[in-house]
């Protein structure tokens, strides 16, 4: 058995919680990052048209040319990244796979990767499996979970291969401010490091914040691996379409691995993705407005319960400090599920040190979020 997969297995507490919640029909899930909103109709219609027209057969490992070209247009339009669709883009089976593949391709045993903490646990799993070492850089509530370049620089050693950045962040909903991002880019250039930029939540920023792709900054394109996907932007989690854009040599290497791992991303989903990227983009703004309203609702409710969270400027999460309850996060997760019928993931699912935090998702309609908050209020008061 491969012991390097052990970190994956250690993360099962959230699966146990989910299974428990699934057995309780009345439970409200504020757990998984799976948008409740439907995939917009024009995207579903494009998939149905592909099925009707027989466009369901095998696709190239790098992805349908139509999709790679649509991604190249999007990267230029939205991110200011100029990418050659023939050589610098790889379509993946979701952004989770993008992360997995690029880490396996990039990281040699002993390499260190600097990762902001708390973090999405799949980073640990992928880096550990490659034999790499994850070096955590703390972020904190006082600074709205922005990433401090000084803290990052202090952790660079001669084994550091890459800095992984996620903005907006899962789980903290923090964003990396443009000034800090600029400084991080300078550090990467000065210290000759690769940047892995996870931009899966790029569309969801609030309160006038702006998303900046680090690959668009001067001198960064050649050292940045940007990954993203359609799951969050277009409520397409079940379709499994993501992408990597990076210099051609690296894409070539990752494509070789992609061919071994699962050959190509599902064809029907790729046609749906073409429709999503080339079609009307109003759906993203509509979703953002919906999430923003929910965000304010949950922030107000949690504040009323004595919880704090800095200022969540992105994604669709609230990373709330539960110290005032006097209960640790794992206990509170089970308590809320049992007594309130509300599923919330404990902070420890996102890092060992985060037993005073919980991640709330905003992925329920407002009346249900209100109900969840009311149930929580009753339990915490009792």
């Amino acid at each position, binding site marked *: 058995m491969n012991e390097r997969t052990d970190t994956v297995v250690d993360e099962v507490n959230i699966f146990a919680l989910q299974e428990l919640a699934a057995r309780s029909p009345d439970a409200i899930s504020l757990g998984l990052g799976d948008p409740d909103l439907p995939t917009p109709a024009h995207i579903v219609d494009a998939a149905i048209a592909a099925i009707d027209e027989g466009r*369901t057969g095998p696709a190239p490992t790098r992805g349908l040319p139509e999709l790679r070209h649509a991604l190249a247009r999007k990267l230029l339009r939205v991110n200011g990244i100029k990418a050659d669709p023939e050589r610098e883009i790889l379509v993946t089976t979701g952004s*989770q796979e993008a992360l997995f593949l690029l880490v396996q391709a990039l990281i040699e045993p002993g390499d260190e990767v600097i990762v902001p903490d708390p973090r999405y646990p799949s980073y640990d799993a992928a880096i550990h499996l490659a034999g790499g070492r994850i070096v955590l850089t703390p972020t904190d509530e006082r600074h709205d979970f922005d990433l401090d370049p000084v803290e990052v620089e202090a952790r660079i050693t001669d084994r550091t291969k890459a800095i992984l950045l996620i903005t907006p962040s899962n789980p903290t909903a923090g964003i990396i401010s443009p000034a800090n991002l600029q400084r991080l880019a300078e550090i990467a250039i000065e210290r000759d490091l690769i940047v892995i930029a996870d931009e899966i939540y790029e569309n969801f920023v609030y309160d006038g914040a702006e998303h900046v792709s680090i690959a668009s900054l001067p001198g960064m394109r050649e050292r940045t691996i940007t990954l993203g996907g359609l799951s969050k932007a277009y409520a397409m989690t079940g379709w499994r379409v993501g992408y990597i854009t990076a210099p051609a040599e690296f894409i070539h290497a990752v494509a070789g691995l992609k061919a*071994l791992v699962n050959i190509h991303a599902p064809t029907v989903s790729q046609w749906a993705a073409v429709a999503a990227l080339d079609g009307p983009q109003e759906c993203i703004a509509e979703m953002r407005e919906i999430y923003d309203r929910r965000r304010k609702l949950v922030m107000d409710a949690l504040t009323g319960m004595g919880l704090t969270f800095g200022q969540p400027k992105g994604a669709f999460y609230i990373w709330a400090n539960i110290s005032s309850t006097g209960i640790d996060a794992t206990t509170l997760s089970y308590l809320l599920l049992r007594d309130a019928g509300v599923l919330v993931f404990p902070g420890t699912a996102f890092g060992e040190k985060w037993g005073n935090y919980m991640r709330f998702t905003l992925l329920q309609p407002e009346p249900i979020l209100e109900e969840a908050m009311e149930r929580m209020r009753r339990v915490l008061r009792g």
Partner: protein
Amino acid sequence: MGRALAVRVLGHGAAIGAQADTAELLDLTRPEPQETAAPIRKAAKAALERGETHYTARTGILPLRQAIAGMSTVDGFPATAEGVAITNGGAEALYIALQATLQPGDRALLLEPVAPRVIDVVRFIGAQPVVLTDIEDARLEGGDVVVVSAPSSLSSVAMPDHGLTVLLEAARKQDVTVIVDRSAAPDRYQPAPPFARPDLAAEVITVGSFSGGYGLAGWRVGYFTSPPDGMERLAGLKESMSICTTTVAQFAAQAALEHAGELLALERDRFTRRRDMLIQILAASGIPVIQPDVYPALLIDIRQSGMDDHRFAQRLASEAGVVVEPGSIFGESLAGHVRINLGVEETMLIEGVTRLASFVEAG
């Protein structure tokens, strides 16, 4: 840059065709695209229309896992729904099985014939591939994992129960993890009785695919089954690789199993007809084949040409404009044979095989 650069990338068979002007070549290795069958299309569209666009459980939708567990159990490979996970194609299932069971430095015993991509995966993981040529001799000493395809989509031949039993007993004795690739199991010309030793089969990891006989290659859906003690590790790795399998593809696969009888019968008829026709063309020139148990591969014995299979394939491409795979790509057991795919468009298939027969006759 990391290990991916060390991977030998693709194209072992296709490389032969690439040397010549592809427009002029009859490529007998690439099947023509198959339309997804009507009942599967209908089920997939219905799933999309009712909003099945979210993540599923990491192991997949329960009705599909139940159906796979039932099918596997009937075949003599006992499985429960809790021990099944749906994957993004059979390739992902095999990758997960290998990645979860092999440590860097471990020895992976690969029973011939073996696809070069499997050797590549083992190397990529950092383990050592060891190709076994004879199942009856397999003591499995010093091995950590053994991989066997039964039936083999490469040789087109099913593995006799006796051989598999010997292997599984040796694995039990040596405490070697067994991965049985059953991707070609639906593609039999004749129905097979269940494997005679379900007690041994219950201890193995199996991998399967909906790409072959069900015609769902582009949908990317496969699965693995695992004994209970290994399931959490495999499912955890699946989750960290791709969260879950494409939801609509899972519903397509469920429909495929609900209509398995009719769908597989259509495929079986199509391939039986092609097999018989081609064997007749080849027999007329005195060229034997390996009698296939499963489609779509057909292994043609070209030893009478006096050439080895690589040389034969090269000359066939350059002189007759026909692309085939040298059998020895997949191991010494298929040396002296070339491999074609009966899923190639029919007129091209007939023309190509006719040219191959003339090429052999012309010496």
